[in-house]
């Protein structure tokens, strides 16, 4: 009965490939996020969607494209993967962006680029 679930948990692929990470939340939240955690465990927000509308788009290469088919799902597609994309990617959700309520995180997707 996971609240925020991401698939896959591990992703190992070669440079230049295209891959997608899926995220689903069953909390009825309006807002979803993607974070990148680097090897030093620093967390940086990448994107945020509120009711399927993009509200945060940080300085992220345009090889990264989020897609929100409905407010319970926020997927991340990455084109032409590079070595520097190796990281743990976390999906999160919160009730409403403007409420400043806590965010609920998934368990992460560990992406390794060979």
């Amino acid at each position, binding site marked *: 009965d996971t609240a925020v679930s991401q698939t896959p948990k591990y992703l190992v692929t070669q440079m230049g490939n295209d891959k997608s990470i899926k995220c689903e939340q069953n909390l009825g939240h309006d807002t979803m996020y993607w974070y990148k955690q680097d090897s030093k*465990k620093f*967390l*940086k927000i990448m994107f*945020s969607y509120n009711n399927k509308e993009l509200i*945060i788009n940080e300085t992220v290469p345009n090889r990264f494209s989020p897609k929100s088919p409905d407010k319970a799902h926020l997927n991340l597609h990455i084109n032409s993967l590079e070595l520097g994309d190796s990281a743990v990617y976390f999906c999160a959700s919160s009730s409403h962006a*403007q409420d*400043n309520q806590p*965010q609920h*995180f998934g368990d992460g997707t560990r992406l390794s680029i060979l």
Partner: protein
Amino acid sequence: AQSVTQLDSQVPVFEEAPVELRCNYSSSVSVYLFWYVQYPNQGLQLLLKYLSGSTLVESINGFEAEFNKSQTSFHLRKPSVHISDTAEYFCAVSEDGSTLGRLYFGRGTQLTVWP
């Protein structure tokens, strides 16, 4: 933009000793404050939060944090730690009035509890 500073990247302590993990933020506006805990190979879990009201907030597993507006701090404390408290701890801040729900994270503090 907010800046969140966790002064200690690693804190080693012995079991049953007290611990304090420090967090300072930069904002001069009203803020909401959070501590998250990350166990190995897991996502972040909310440990405690300050939204309003009493400046001392507590978690169910014995941690507490105190919001100090004048010192722009939100230090996390526990009077007696257990080995199971070994984890990475993140302080996070969001700004009152923001409609984006943006969280600014510190760089984390690795708490290691030794027997």
